[in-house]
């Protein structure tokens, strides 16, 4: 980078680079939405490189070809929009990007450069319509800086060309002394100022709508939400720190812990496939109300979790924290075509929403956290309804050693005690690992008797099969475990927190959760630097969403109300109703006096200079020189008062020659010696010289 090598760049180079950078940032602002498509993204960067290397050599060539291609593409997009294959905003954004590419290849005149900046602005606006993520914000920041450079340098370049003509301007345009790092830094500071102003305008510009609209983000599949589990495919489970849920709890957990010990339930998987699990294929039905909990005997305690899905879920699952779900309320999505999701439920009790591609989905799940106590679950017998058959199904090829182990642990015991015994044995006897190389035919036997180590799905699967072999209905459940607190005040559940556990059915109590995976190893996102960075990024994204994307009339009203409150509070304090009123009053009075004095000084300066700027005073005078200067001014005033005519241009020596008075000569000598000769001049000397002068004039 020549900028940093100390050689600088020419104004022409800097202007072209700034224009290119502006186009790149505008393109990125659009591209981060993912709506442009990979071919167009690749084409842009190829065209960018081509334009850079061609450096205007192809300027003006093949214009007819460009026009034909652009016209054809426009017709194609129009047709796609017409038949409903393409959104009109996406079509406009893609076409704007093509125009941007075209302009990058055609840069020569002022019109070309300004068109490039104009198209960049349009691309930025398209990005604002297509993307709502923090990445847009970063591209916007880059655009603000590069755009400021580009606009200022383009203006400067063409001002020089217009002012000096093509030949006269060549030297300046190729000079490395104009686009210096200092100038670019100054312009960047200017951009920062512009961004600050932008923030002020953004937060104060009156909002007329209750909703801040934006296009929904693209849903993406997230680990942990599959409706099947395959235990035969083994290997190393990668740590995935991507945030998939943002959760805020009400009431907040006690002690504000840094991590939550919550299960976030997604699917119940009842059908054993021989190699894993799959969900029962039952239909979904609208769930206006959720089933009531059987009487648990405990005191009901509710917990509300406001859940925000990140990146979307392609199968529209509602995740619920530990407890019995009482209600699910969806937040109305903030999109251009808002569709409030509807809640559905299947026979296994899993909750879903439709439409699944509604984009950013937020909902509040309220659960009853009062789980029945273990004592309450004892003695309820083993008479199970027929619909639980799937949860009692023992695979025919289940290794007899598994059955034998289950009987050893739980035979003859109450189902709850048997479940506790199996859970405890698995937790204590086996170890947790994510590294399971190779494929095995019987993953459960391999886990229990050979490797004696496995991940959460093996723990939960083994427990379910062992309980079923004892005639206790159980099923495998998938979801997430945990939640890491972020600086933004919410708990982040990450893809690597995917987890599997067990639900056991008890008469008159329903399903109760058991988790045989060692507690310290559930979930599993390691607290690496990368994981922390991902969390930090997510916290930034969440703040971006809250403070920028979702800022609306209500938020603006609240912000203004807060400002009014602050002013009112200050007023109260000034009126003596606050604790530190006197100090504040003194402070404000002092501030007011300082401001007034400053304004008066400025005004006086303006008056003295007659509205003209002060002339340069040259180097500052030292104390002796200032004293000499005052001595001459006072001496001159005294002479004038005595009737000696002295023009403003009369020099001190001229005055001395004209008056022929020794006192004047002495004063002028002292003045010259101190003012120009570096001689000292004390206050006493000044007083003495002035006194002698007055005496001499009187006599």
């Amino acid at each position: 980078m020549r900028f940093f090598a100390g050689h600088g760049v020419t104004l022409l180079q800097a202007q072209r680079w700034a224009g290119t950078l502006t186009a790149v940032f505008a393109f990125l602002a659009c591209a981060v939405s993912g709506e442009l498509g990979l071919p167009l993204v690749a084409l842009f960067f190829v065209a960018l490189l081509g334009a850079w290397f061609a450096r205007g050599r192809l300027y003006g060539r093949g214009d007819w070809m460009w026009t034909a291609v652009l016209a054809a593409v426009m017709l194609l997009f129009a047709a796609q929009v017409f038949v409903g294959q393409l959104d009109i905003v996406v079509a406009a954004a893609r076409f704007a990007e093509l125009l941007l590419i075209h302009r990058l290849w055609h840069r020569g005149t002022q019109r070309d450069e300004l068109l490039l900046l104009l198209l960049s602005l349009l691309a930025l606006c398209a990005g604002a319509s297509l993307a709502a993520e923090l990445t847009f914000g970063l591209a916007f920041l880059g655009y603000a800086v590069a755009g400021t450079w580009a606009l200022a340098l383009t203006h400067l370049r063409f001002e020089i060309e217009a002012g000096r003509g093509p030949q006269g301007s060549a030297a300046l345009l190729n000079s490395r002394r104009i686009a210096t790092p200092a100038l670019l830094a100054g312009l960047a500071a200017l951009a920062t100022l512009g961004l600050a102003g932008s923030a002020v305008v953004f937060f104060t510009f009156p909002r007329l709508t209750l909703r801040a609209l934006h296009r929904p983000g693209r849903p993406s599949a997230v680990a942990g939400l599959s409706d099947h589990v395959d235990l035969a495919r083994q290997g190393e489970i990668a740590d995935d720190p991507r945030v998939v849920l943002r959760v805020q709890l009400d009431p907040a957990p006690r002690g504000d812990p840094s991590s939550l010990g919550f299960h976030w339930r997604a699917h119940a998987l009842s059908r054993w496939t021989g190699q894993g699990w799959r969900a029962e294929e039952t239909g979904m039905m609208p769930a206006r109300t959720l089933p009531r909990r059987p009487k648990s005997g405990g005191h009901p305690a509710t917990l509300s979790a406001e859940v925000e899905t990140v990146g979307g879920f392609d199968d529209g699952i509602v995740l619920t924290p530990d407890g019995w779900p009482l209600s699910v309320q969806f937040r109305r999505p903030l999109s251009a075509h808002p569709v409030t999701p509807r809640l559905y439920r299947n026979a296994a009790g899993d909750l879903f929403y439709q439409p699944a591609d509604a984009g950013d989905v937020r909902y509040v799940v309220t659960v009853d956290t009062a789980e029945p106590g273990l004592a309450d679950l004892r003695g309820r017998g083993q008479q199970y309804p027929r619909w639980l058959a799937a949860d009692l199904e023992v695979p025919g090829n289940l290794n007899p050693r598994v059955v034998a182990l289950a009987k050893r642990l739980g035979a003859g015991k109450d189902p709850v005690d048997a479940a506790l015994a199996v859970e405890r044995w698995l937790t204590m006897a086996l170890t947790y690992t994510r590294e399971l190389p190779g494929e095995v035919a019987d993953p459960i036997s391999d886990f229990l008797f050979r490797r004696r180590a496995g991940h959460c799905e093996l723990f939960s699967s083994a427990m379910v099969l062992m309980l079923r072999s004892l005639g206790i209905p159980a099923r495998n459940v998938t979801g997430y475990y945990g939640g890491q607190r972020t600086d933004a005040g919410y708990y982040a559940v990450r893809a690597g927190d995917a987890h599997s556990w067990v639900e056991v059915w008890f008469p008159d109590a329903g399903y109760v959760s058991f988790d045989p995976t060692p507690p310290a190893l559930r979930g599993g996102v390691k607290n690496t630097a990368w994981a922390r960075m991902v969390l930090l990024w997510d916290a930034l994204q969440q703040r971006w969403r809250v403070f920028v994307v979702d800022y609306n009339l209500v938020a603006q009203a609240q912000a203004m109300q807060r400002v009014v409150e602050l002013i009112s509070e200050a007023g109260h304090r000034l009126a003596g109703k606050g604790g530190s009123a006197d100090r504040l009053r003194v402070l404000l009075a002092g501030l007011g006096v300082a401001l007034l004095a400053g304004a008066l000084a400025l005004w006086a300066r303006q008056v003295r200079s007659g509205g003209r700027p002060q002339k340069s005073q040259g180097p500052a005078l030292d104390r002796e020189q200032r004293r000499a200067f005052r001595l001459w001014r006072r001496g001159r005033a005294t002479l004038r008062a005595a009737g000696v005519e002295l023009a403003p241009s009369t020099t001190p020596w001229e005055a001395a020659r004209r008056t022929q008075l020794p006192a004047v000569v002495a004063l002028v000598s002292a003045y010259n010696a101190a003012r120009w000769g570096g001689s000292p001049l004390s206050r006493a000397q000044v007083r003495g010289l002035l006194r002698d002068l007055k005496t001499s004039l009187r006599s």
Partner: protein
Amino acid sequence: MIPAWKRRLSFTRLGRWYVGLTVGIGLAAVNTGNNLLFLVLGLLLASVVVSGILSEQSLRAVEVQRRLPSTATVGQPALIGLLARNGKPRVPSFSLELRERGGEVAGSGFLVILPPRQAAEVAYRFVPKRRGLHRFEQLEVATRAPFGLFEKSRPLEAPAELVVFPRQVDAAPLAARALAREGERPLDRAGLGLEVHSLRDHRAGEDARTIHWRSSARAGRLIGVDREQEKRRRVCVVLDQRGLSGEILERRVEQAAALVTRELDAGAEVALAVAGQRLAAGSGDAHLRKALTLLALLQAATVPLPPPQPDGESAVLEVRG
């Protein structure tokens, strides 16, 4: 007196586009409630404000002085200097256009940067189309910095006058009312001329340069020479402008100027007589300027004027059509 705070503001073409786009994006933002469009709108509006502040910074404390050429002649380019001084202690001024405003002369100069506490001069070419007095009224310092969206300008009082001399033409052969002898005219008495007045014996102590060497060689003794006192040739250019106007007057004035110039260049003392005015005979650059100024300011007679009064001792050169 123009107050120091007075400014003129106008849109550039780019500025009009910019404002139009800003309004469009603002409408789109309000209509859709898309906050990111509000963000873009904020940036555009803030840039306008920043642009206004910076352009004001560029203009503030900039003083401009006009530097007129010592002579200007119709049809010949003259350079008029514009000296700008940035009185700000720390902040440079960018992209300054210095230009004439309100007077009879139009011209401008451009400064890319004017560092703090420094001065710089630019000049523009001025090719006068007519002779006479040209009045300058105001100077204007304008900037489109930093983005070229708006042009902000600050008018400055700078009244000045420039007398443009008549066009330089070749002096036509003119009819002389009384022709004088060419060159210097001897006065028939001893003096400091070049012509020999008389020869005599060289006196001791006399300057050796007075020795006439050829006569001394011939006579065998030192012979001194007295030279004649000479008087410069005097001409009076006469132009009767009564009844003349328009192109005819212009041609006559140009001819008169050409004669004055030619005669002065030839070493003569030149007087100038026009109807109602007379310039006494003189020589040198200052006299030439006086004569050309008189001719530059000569107007068609609108009131009865006495005829030109030529100098009695001078040869009269009368300008005729």
